């Protein structure tokens, strides 16, 4: 369709060599100035901090090398529990979130109870602090001493996270469904697709794509909130750091735990960016070959 209007033999693109050299020079200069400025800033701030009278005590308390070496392996070990909680909670949250989002948009009068339940669930668990839910389930349910119900702290801590985050993710999915223009549903229905088929093949795929970035954001938040389970007693990374710190009155272990969380969340945020970029590219580049 887009027939080239240039004369045969003419190049597709053409840059004036002088202009191009100028551009390159300017880019090189900008990079150099930026680096020098950043380096200068770091040196000045670092020097200023290290010269303050309190710095040696701060360093001793939070950035103690030997303490770090002593506690870090134990922290990593304890972090495996956080990872396990996260890996179990995440898929459950996605499933609950999607089902609740779909239930809230049901139109059939017969299914009104489902719709009301889903709405109540979201209202309640979005309104209650996560840590309160953890206390309520983690201490409350075992206190009932029910037959056949686990009274394991990790189990109830994870359940509380799933319930709390499920409500958030349900709202994210619902926003995604709402972001698909109504003309898409109309077009699908006009082709004879049923309401269910329209949701399954036309609305949901677009909705999920639209909410991948906010979903990844919630995952990052969940990774951090696995530390809340520590209030129930299981030795995950925050609990371990707390044990280390309280035995030596040195807080390097907390900094170590913080580093472990950062080491996981930063790649996750970069991954979120990458997914978005790839989605854009895939949709605009497909089939150009």
């Amino acid at each position, binding site marked *: *369709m887009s027939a080239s209007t240039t004369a045969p033999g003419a190049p597709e693109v053409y840059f004036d060599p002088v202009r191009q050299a100028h551009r390159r020079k300017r880019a090189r200069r900008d990079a150099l100035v930026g680096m020098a400025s950043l380096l200068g800033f770091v040196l000045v701030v670092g020097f200023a901090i290290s010269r303050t009278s309190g710095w040696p005590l701060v360093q001793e308390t939070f950035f103690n090398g030997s303490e770090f070496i002593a506690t870090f392996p134990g922290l990593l070990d304890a972090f495996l529990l956080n990872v396990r909680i996260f890996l179990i909670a995440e898929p459950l949250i996605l499933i609950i979130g999607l089902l609740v989002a779909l239930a809230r948009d049901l139109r059939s009068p017969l299914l009104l109870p489902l719709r009301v339940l889903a709405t109540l669930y979201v209202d309640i668990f979005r309104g209650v602090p996560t840590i309160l839910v953890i206390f309520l389930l983690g201490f409350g349910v075992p206190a009932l001493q029910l037959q056949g119900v686990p009274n394991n702290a990790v189990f109830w801590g994870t359940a509380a996270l799933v319930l709390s985050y499920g409500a958030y993710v349900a709202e994210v999915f619902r926003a995604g469904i709402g972001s698909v223009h109504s*003309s*898409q549903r*109309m*077009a*699908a*229905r*006009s*082709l*004879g*697709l*049923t309401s269910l*088929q329209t949701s399954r*093949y*036309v609305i949901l*795929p*677009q909705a999920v*794509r639209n909410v991948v970035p906010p979903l990844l954001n919630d995952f990052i938040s969940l990774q951090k909130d696995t530390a809340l389970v520590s209030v129930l007693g299981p030795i995950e990374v925050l609990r371990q750091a707390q044990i280390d710190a309280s035995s030596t009155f040195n807080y390097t272990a907390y900094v170590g735990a913080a580093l472990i969380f950062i080491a996981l969340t930063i790649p996750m945020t970069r991954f979120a960016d990458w997914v978005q970029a790839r989605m854009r590219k895939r*949709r*605009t580049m*497909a*089939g*150009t070959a």
Partner: protein
Amino acid sequence: MTDTLIDISGVWKAFDDHSVLRGLDLSVDRHEAVVLIGASGSGKSTLLRCVNGLENVDAGHITLDGNLDVTGFKTDMDVVRRRIGIVFQSYNLFPHMTVLDNVTLSPRKVLKRSAAECRDQAMTLLQRFGLAAKASDYPDRLSGGQAQRVAIVRALAMEPELMLFDEITSALDPLLVGEVLDAVRELKEGGLTLIMATHEMGFAREVADRVCFLDAGVVLEQGTPAAVFGSPQEEKTKEFLARILK
């Protein structure tokens, strides 16, 4: 005896308390191409939407092929829409699917045909409308004219008995209108029954078997293009044509 495909009688349709259709009657024969003209708000789009059940009528009846009551309380609208195709002004292609998947989705899921069969049928149709090379592209790689032709092919893949076109060239760059109208012309020559709302008077004159002028929710005047364009009887028709043809 005429062979009526769609019979619209006494249809009323209001939005809030404003009636857009006011007891409209229209019947279209098999293989006939009917063009609806009229000012914006005269009810063209609403009529088309009522015909394939995207809007519920307030009163009146629409019957397809003498046996399917589109306006019946117990009618399965999915059955109606399988038999009546519609193309919109804004294409409404599914942006997350390739052109081929856009075209095959409905035949696969609604008519339960095999993927291979749907693919072959889709490729034949895309070929016919000069779109075969675009089969694996996503809709955002298409020009407006290509997108609208894909929308036509997508509707055709359901093998409808009646096609509705709702101002399908209104959103297009003037240079791209021709290719879409060519597609409609081809369908008309193939004998498909069609009802088309349009502002393209030249095209209406050339392709229509009958032109209907809608005004205030009724068909005010109808006849062959030569009659309606050449010697309109109603004052309002004359006014409308004078404004749009000047």
